């Protein structure tokens, strides 16, 4: 039985010493090779959880295991070879080309004084191809549309050759067409032994491609499991505190909010 890609055990995190817990004894075992969507209202702790997994934030109690090893046992470089982050909005100030930008993902494999080599360039090229934007390779990142920029960021994260890809609200500010494109790419990435963990506030995006769903509210896990089990009206209503109905349309779940 393959160990979970990420095993989150009783993680509690507070931003202020005496404040409310942003994460309250969160426990979840993310299955390897899954596409797990983290859903929840604003302030439920979704982004906080990602940051803890990355190691940006230290939990006050609990543990995180990545690929069977304790997270704090990894050096930062090692961890970044395993986990890649696609942030919500990457603001690139200078006009790097898409290829040069993707190449930045090779940082975990280069030490301070090294410059990217042929093999690094090959990996970056492959990442661009798997995301489907190799035609844009030499355009400046700053000239891309929203969706294309998001894909470029995905490519950059892929260049890290990570086992786990973390995405923070990847489609939240994209229009339908671009969102569809990005989701499609995410789905295709799964097929290479990768685990994908992503946050979103749109349940319908989750139903499009997720295999597993993690529901959160107020820093607590409401439910976690395969899509079919967790994406139900009652659970979603409990999560969002609004009446939610889930209906089946041509074999696909659609989430509707009641008036």
């Amino acid at each position: 039985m393959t160990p979970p890609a990420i095993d989150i055990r009783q993680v509690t995190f507070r931003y202020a010493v005496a404040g409310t817990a942003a994460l309250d004894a969160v426990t979840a075992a993310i299955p390897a090779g899954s596409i797990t969507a983290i859903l929840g209202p604003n302030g439920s702790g979704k982004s906080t959880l990602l940051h803890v997994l990355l190691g940006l934030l230290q939990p006050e109690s609990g543990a995180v295991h990545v690929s069977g090893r304790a997270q704090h046992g990894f050096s930062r470089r090692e961890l970044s070879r395993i986990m890649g982050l696609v942030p919500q909005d990457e603001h690139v100030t200078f006009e790097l080309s898409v290829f040069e930008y993707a190449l930045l993902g090779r940082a975990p494999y280069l030490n301070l004084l090294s410059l990217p080599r042929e093999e690094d360039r090959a990996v970056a090229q492959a990442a661009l191809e798997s995301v489907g934007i190799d035609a844009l390779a030499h355009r400046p990142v700053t000239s891309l549309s929203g969706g294309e920029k998001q894909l470029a960021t995905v490519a950059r994260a892929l260049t890290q050759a990570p086992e786990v890809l973390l995405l923070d609200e990847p489609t939240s500010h994209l229009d339908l067409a671009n969102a569809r494109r990005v989701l499609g790419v995410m789905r295709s990435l799964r097929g290479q032994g990768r685990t994908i963990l992503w946050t979103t506030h749109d349940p319908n995006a989750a139903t499009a491609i997720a295999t597993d769903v993690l529901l959160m509210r107020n820093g607590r896990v409401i439910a976690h499991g395969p899509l079919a089990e967790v994406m139900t009206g009652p659970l979603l209503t409990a999560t969002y505190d609004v009446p939610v109905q889930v209906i089946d349309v041509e074999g696909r779940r659609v989430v509707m909010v009641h008036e």
Partner: protein
Amino acid sequence: MTEIRTGTLPQVSDQERQGRRRVAILAVVLLALVGVSLFLGRYPGPYWTPLSALRDDALAQRLVLNLRLPRILGAVMVGMVLAASGVSFQMIFRNPLVDSGFLGVSAGASFGASLAIVALGGAPLTIQISAAVFGTLGLVSSYLLGTRIRYGDWVLRLVLAGIAVSALYSSGTSLLKYAADPLRQLPEITFWMLGGLWSLTWADILQIAPVVVPCLLVILLLRWRLNLLSLRDETAYSLGVSAGRERLVLLLAAVLATAAVVSKTGLIGWVGLIVPHIARRWVGSDAQRALPGAMLLGALFTLFCDDIARTALTGELPLGILTSMLGAAIFMALMIRDGAGMRR
């Protein structure tokens, strides 16, 4: 680690190839200008020194070897340092509108040098160290102040903070000038602030080279990291980059080199601001090419201006004035053209 699926072998883009070629062109042009500059001067006659003079006139030989050559090298060094610092500051602070002038480094270094002249004895080493210390302080104050301003986006905040800190140090320098002994100290300060490479001798070069060369090497070796540091902190972290440490090393190298150079030559403005822009435009934004490109272009620009400063008229023109005039004119032209490449 998952298996790397390598696709088609990536072609070096035409852009990249062109960028590299252009960097090489800049290097060649710089060497050529250095050679030409050896023949420019006012002795024995204005503008061009004929080969016969160099061959036969002992004074001409002495002037070329002891005055012109170190001055030319000095100009090259100054240009490289200011441009490299400019690129580093711009990428680290993710702000194409800054250079050491805007971030309180130059104003701080001036203050430090003036303080050394007025109150600390005025020995050359003291001036250099004082300029370096206060230059660094200027940068730190600008950065800290920028994080505390609650107006505008990061770009604006940093520039505002830098302007405020620079103004503070400038008034400090004015106060020192007011208190200075007009016979001894004031002329030294005033001359220093005008910015010039008058009579830069081999001794001066040997004093600043041990600081400048290693610092430039550090920045050059770490140039790819500049790309990384221009990303968000979060992203850099996720890429395993110790952003704080790397920024510190690069900033320290930039400030030390700038302060060392400024302590000998005074304030020379605008090079650090516009040369990185033009270099990026010409050879690409990737720091792998933009940094060496900017360094070469900065050296060219400064050397060109200094050649004019010492050759055009019978009297010396202050270099700082020339670089400001030319730099400001080019900057205005660029801004009109397309907003200096800033993207929202």
